Structures are given as structure tokens and as C-alpha cells.
């Protein structure tokens, strides 16, 4: 970890109105994440119209000296980090320029005062889609880690109230508690009126243990489950909202410009509103949901019945 020994760097901010450099750090990855980061980068390019966007792909392990030289040359005024690795490196380098976090399921509880967009979808959007697909649902169950997603659940409570739903939020500190909570939810939930929401936190909604359990039991009990993870939809969840990467990039560019304009303004990681919608028609058919063509067309990704 040679870069730990490298001193802080303070980017220059142009005083003469010349275009400033927006540095984007992102990890060098394989498919499908390479495509995701490329789309977000494209969105940032589109959004940062008045600035110069420069991107740097971080290898694993990162080349600290190379990154240092690149930063010395580019002298960014603001840095957008995409993904876990880039954010970690930014924190390690201690760059003295405004920072915007993106493409990360970041929690404002864990990163207070940091600007950015997390991967947690705005609960209001999720509930709106739920009501659109299954107007009879009255209650939404969710299992979450209070130390990580309390902020999201607070938002969800408000959104649920606005949507005429009751949110039953059950805390779980680890996977074992999560499994216990989900087991009880899957037994207690009423298929006629209840739905289950899977949060983005992988420690709570583990795709290898919890997801198979939820998918199997919900299929047996004909329970409606929704998520904001596209992989969940493919594996048996009715619907989900997932990032519109280009729009997410544009939003990150807006936040970067805002940070340049008012570096000291309070900021926080916000919920994801730039989303696309996906639906699994096989699950919909199993739940006897009427999805007509017009409704189907409102979804960006439709998984067919077969």
C-alpha cells in the first residue's frame, strides 16, 4: 500500500473562469460492470457541460505512483469516485478537493457529509410501482440493518404513508438475524395484502442464502416481493428498479458542479431516483397480476413468462 505514504494533494480551482477539471476515478473491471461504468462516465460527460471531464481507470491493486502523476498533471477541481475501490482510494489519498460518491450502495450513516448518489432506490418510486402493479397491497415488510439503512427506512416510512401503505421494518444486524427475520416475515405475511421489499444491502439480502430462501418461500406462498437489484428480478422477484446509468452520471455531474459552486454547502448521499424499471412476467402470472400491454410498455426491462 505504497499510496498510503503519499501526501495529500490539493487541486487547483480556476479563478479566471476557465474550464475546470472533473476527475472521475473508477475501477478497471470486467463485464458487466465495465458497461455500467462506461454508461455512468458517458452521463457525467453529458452532465458536466461547462467543465473538462478526465477519467482514470484504477487497476487492482492500484498504481499509486501512476495515479499521483495523473492527478499532478490534471489538477482536478472536483473528484467523482465510482465504486468501492475508487472511493476507498480517494479516502486514502486524502485529496483536498470536493468529492462526489457514485455507483456505490453507500449509506449516509456511514459517510456523513459526503455528496453523492447511492444505489438505494427512492422508496417512493418503489411503492408507486407496487401500487401500480398490485393496488390491493396494504403492507410492506422490510428487513434492514439499522446501522446502515435507518435513513432509508425513515424515508420509506414517509413514502409508505404517502402511498397508503404500512411499512413493517425489522432490524437485523447480521445475516443470521436477517434469516430469522425473513423466516418470520415469510410466515407472517399475508399474500393478499402484503409485499416484501428487499433492500440493496448485500449483508442483509445475501444473494446466496437469503435470496433463495425468500424466492422459494414467496413462490410457495404467492407473496409479492420487490427489490432494487436487477439480479433479484432475474432470480424470481416480481419487479425492481435499477439505475439508469446515464442519468445517474448526469446527476453525479450536477452534484460535482454544485460542490464546485458551494464547496462548504451541506451535502449528503441521496437516494437513487434515476432509475429504470424491470418486471418478471412469470412471477406476475404466478401471482395472478393483470399486466396489460400498456402497463408492460412502461417497464424498461420485461422478463418474459417462459
Amino acid at each position, binding site marked *: 500500500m505504497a499510496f498510503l505514504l503519499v501526501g495529500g494533494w490539493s487541486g487547483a480551482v480556476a479563478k479566471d473562469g476557465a474550464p475546470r477539471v472533473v476527475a472521475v476515478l473508477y475501477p478497471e473491471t470486467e463485464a458487466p460492470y465495465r458497461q455500467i461504468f462506461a454508461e455512468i462516465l458517458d452521463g457525467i460527460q453529458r452532465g458536466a457541460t461547462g467543465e473538462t471531464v478526465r477519467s482514470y481507470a484504477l487497476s487492482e491493486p492500484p498504481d499509486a505512483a501512476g495515479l499521483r502523476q495523473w492527478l499532478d498533471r490534471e489538477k482536478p477541481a472536483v473528484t467523482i469516485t465510482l465504486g468501492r475501490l475508487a472511493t476507498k482510494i480517494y479516502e486514502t489519498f486524502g485529496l483536498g478537493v470536493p468529492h462526489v460518491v457514485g455507483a456505490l450502495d453507500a449509506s449516509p450513516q456511514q459517510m456523513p457529509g459526503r455528496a453523492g448518489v447511492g444505489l438505494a432506490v427512492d422508496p417512493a418510486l418503489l411503492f408507486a410501482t407496487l401500487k401500480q402493479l398490485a393496488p390491493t397491497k396494504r403492507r410492506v415488510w422490510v428487513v434492514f440493518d439499522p446501522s446502515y439503512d435507518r435513513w432509508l427506512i425513515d424515508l420509506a416510512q414517509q413514502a409508505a404513508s404517502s402511498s397508503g401503505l404500512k411499512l413493517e421494518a425489522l432490524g437485523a444486524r447480521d*445475516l443470521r438475524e436477517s434469516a430469522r427475520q425473513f423466516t418470520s416475515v415469510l410466515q407472517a405475511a399475508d399474500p393478499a395484502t402484503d409485499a416484501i421489499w428487499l433492500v440493496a444491502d448485500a449483508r442483509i439480502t445475501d444473494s446466496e442464502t437469503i435470496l433463495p430462501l425468500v424466492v422459494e418461500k414467496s413462490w410457495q406462498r404467492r407473496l409479492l416481493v420487490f427489490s432494487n437489484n436487477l439480479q433479484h428480478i432475474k432470480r424470481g422477484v416480481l419487479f425492481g428498479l435499477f439505475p439508469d446509468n446515464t442519468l445517474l452520471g448526469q446527476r453525479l455531474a450536477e452534484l460535482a458542479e454544485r460542490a464546485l459552486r458551494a464547496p462548504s454547502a451541506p451535502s449528503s448521499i441521496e437516494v437513487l431516483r434515476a432509475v429504470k424499471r424491470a418486471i418478471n412476467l412469470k412471477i406476475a402470472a404466478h401471482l395472478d397480476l393483470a399486466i396489460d400491454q400498456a402497463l408492460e410498455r412502461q417497464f424498461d426491462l420485461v422478463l418474459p413468462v417462459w
Partner: protein
Amino acid sequence: MGLLALALASSLSSSGFVAWRLENKALALLGDVTEQLADDSRLVFLESEATAFVRAARIAAFPGVRQAALLKPDAEVWVSSTGAGPWPPAPPANRLSRATLAHEDRDCWYFVAPVRTGANDLSPLAARGDDQLLGYVLIGWRKTPLSHLLGWLFVINGALAVALAAAIFAALHAFLRRLTGPLDHLAGVMRRMRDGETNARVNVAGPAETREIGLVFNSLLERLERNRIALERQRALLESEVRIRTQDLSAARDLALTADRHKSAFLAAMTHEMRTPLQSIIGYTQESDKQLQYLEGDADPAITDTLAEYFGIVLGSAKELLQRINQVLELAAHEAGRT
């Protein structure tokens, strides 16, 4: 025996090497299977103890497994399969990254694999990258199947080695027979010739060198035979000449003997014929001498004395001649086979 010993030694060493490789491969495979079974047991660690017990029993029913246990994150045994024997010492306190051979006894290998979540498919978009240790899966794998396999390996390799040694021995034997057979045949022909057989010949066969020897030997025999026949002819010729000479000599001898007999007969006859008149001479001489003595005093003494002297000389000469004739007669009688 040397060949068999060499083949068996080679078979043992190769079997030992293969057994060593096979055991390493088997241990790697068992580690992989243990890890797979641990991965498949993630959900069980989040469920009840009864479910965990069923899972342990299912793992124990897996082919080759004697016993299985699920351990808590602190390595304490949570559930064990039915009939599980004593468990080996707990896995090392430090967190295992993958399945490890924790213990080994006479009957089993004990593999322990950690059960984790979140580490395998960690997304670069996930903020919390640390995985969670749910516990461990501990499996006692029987050694018997591999032992049987290795036993068969040694048996089959040994049998193959023996068969190979036999084949090599047979081939070597055939080769040596092909090599030494013509030589043995040659030696036999030589012995027969030593014992007197003359028309024996070598059967020209086998390798080129041996055939060459046979051809040369046969050629020598042909030459010897020709020389022998020539000698036989020469000897017969000599014998016939000797016979002729002998006949000639015999005839000459017979002729000589005949002549000798004729000579002896002639001598005998002649001496006999000569003695008779000589006897008459002697007798008449002696009678004359007697008569002369009667005349003594009547006749002139000078005359009578001279006559007496003369009669004495005639008688003496006659007796000497008679003695000579008797000697000749005796010789003739002796030659004639008479004494």
C-alpha cells in the same frame, strides 16, 4: 528370476509414484468437494438446528463420507451426523480461506471448510466488502475407497509386470534359441563326426553369422569327404598292388622251394647213388688189403708194402669221400625234412 525381480521392483516403484500422485489428487478433490458442500450449506447455517442436523446427515450419506459435522464460527461442534465418532481437534483459530485437511487418522481424512457469504461475488458497487463467517463444515472422508483403489493398482501393476517379464523372458528365450540353436546343432554335428559319422551335415539356418559358419563348416566337411574318398581309393589301389606283389613273391617262393626240393632230391639221390659205388670201393679195397696181408711173405715185400700203402691211401680217401657224401646226404635229408 533377475528379470522378474527387476520387473516387480519397477512395478513397485511406478505404482508407489502413481499412488502418491493419486492420493494427492484425491486429497485435492476431497478438499474441493468439501468446499462445495460447505458452499451449499450456507443457508443451513441461517436456519434451525434441526435443519442443520438433517444437512449433516445428508453430507454423511454422501459416498465416501463416514461422518460430518457443522461447526459454529468459534469452531465448536454445532451438529453432528448420526453415529459420528470422536472428532479431531478443532480447526485452527485463524480464519481458513478454503478447505483444509485438519486431521488424519488410520481410517479417515478430516477436511474442514469455512462457510462464508458475500466474498465470492462481491460487487464493485457494494460499499461493505467484508464477508461473514457463518461457521465450518467438518467432514470425515473414508480412506477405504482410495486404499482399495491403490491395492488394485498395485495388484494390476504387479500382474502386468509379471506378464511383461514372462513375455520378455519368452522373447529373450526365443531369441537366444534362434541364436544358439544353430550353434548347438553345429556342436552336435561335430560330436557325431567325432564319433565316426562321416556324412553328417549342418542344417544351415538362424542368423546370418551362424548360417555363414554352417556354410563354411559344410564346405570343410565336403572337402574332408572328398579327401577321405581319395584316400580310400589310394588305399584300395595300394592293397591291390600289394596283393599282386604278394602273389608274385609267393609264386617265386614256391618256385624256389620246388627248385630246392629238386636240388635236395637230386643231392640225396646223387649221394645215395655215389655212396653205393664208394661202399663197393671201400669194401673191395679193404678186401684187397686183406688179401695182400695173406700174400705177405709170398710176394715181394716192396711190392706188398707199396700196395699196402696204396691201399691205405685209397681207403682213407674213400672214407673221407664217404664222409663228405654222408654230410651232403645229411644236409639234403635235413632240407627234405629228414634228419
